């Protein structure tokens, strides 16, 4: 039972354009959502997060949008750069202190120069 889903295994975008990565979840108890970026042979690196009390959070070129009614979140990267080419994972957790983060299966982003 996969509670966090990333239905697009891969995405290619031209340098300078917007990259939009999507994530859906099924558990309405999730209240904290995160995006991670992963390069080959490295561990996932935290990018940006959002609490369920917000619908948008921005950090530089990265913006995460949360649509609770649709149980959907997205990561926008503007402008996309070749160094953004990586696998992106979304993750979710229930209330603080549950010690459990559920990850999606990842989307491989390729930014073309």
């Amino acid at each position, binding site marked *: 039972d996969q509670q966090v889903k990333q239905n697009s295994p891969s995405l290619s975008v031209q340098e300078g354009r917007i990259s939009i990565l999507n994530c859906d979840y099924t558990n309405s108890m999730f*209240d*904290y959502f*995160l995006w*991670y970026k992963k390069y080959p*042979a*490295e*561990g*996932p*690196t*935290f990018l940006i*997060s959002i*609490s369920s009390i917000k619908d948008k959070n921005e950090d530089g070129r990265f913006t995460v949008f949360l649509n609770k009614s649709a149980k959907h979140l997205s990561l926008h990267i503007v402008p996309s750069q070749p160094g953004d080419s990586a*696998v992106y*994972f979304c*993750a979710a*957790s229930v209330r*603080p*202190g549950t*010690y*459990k*983060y*559920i*990850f999606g*299966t*990842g989307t491989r982003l390729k930014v073309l120069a």
Partner: protein
Amino acid sequence: DTAVSQTPKYLVTQMGNDKSIKCEQNLGHDTMYWYKQDSKKFLKIMFSYNNKELIINETVPNRFSPKSPDKAHLNLHINSLELGDSAVYFCASSQTGGQHSPLHFGNGTRLTVT
């Protein structure tokens, strides 16, 4: 000054052997985790420890035994290794206690069982 470090990075061994993976974090976090990334690239939680106490054990076979000597270390010992144990194992840490905080991951240990 690596935040979460795990050793070894690569581990190749034969079926039936016992092996250990070590993890240390210098972030002062109180919670540490083991995640497994299988061949389908799915990151799945195995264990979490808070202040040396086991909090989550996600129906992992008891051949896997985590040990936390202190809150900065969480080691993973695997007995009687099987082919299906081949995967990348990630250690992670976070600070809990009332507020959400992100996981910080190590660079992974690629375990290959032959």
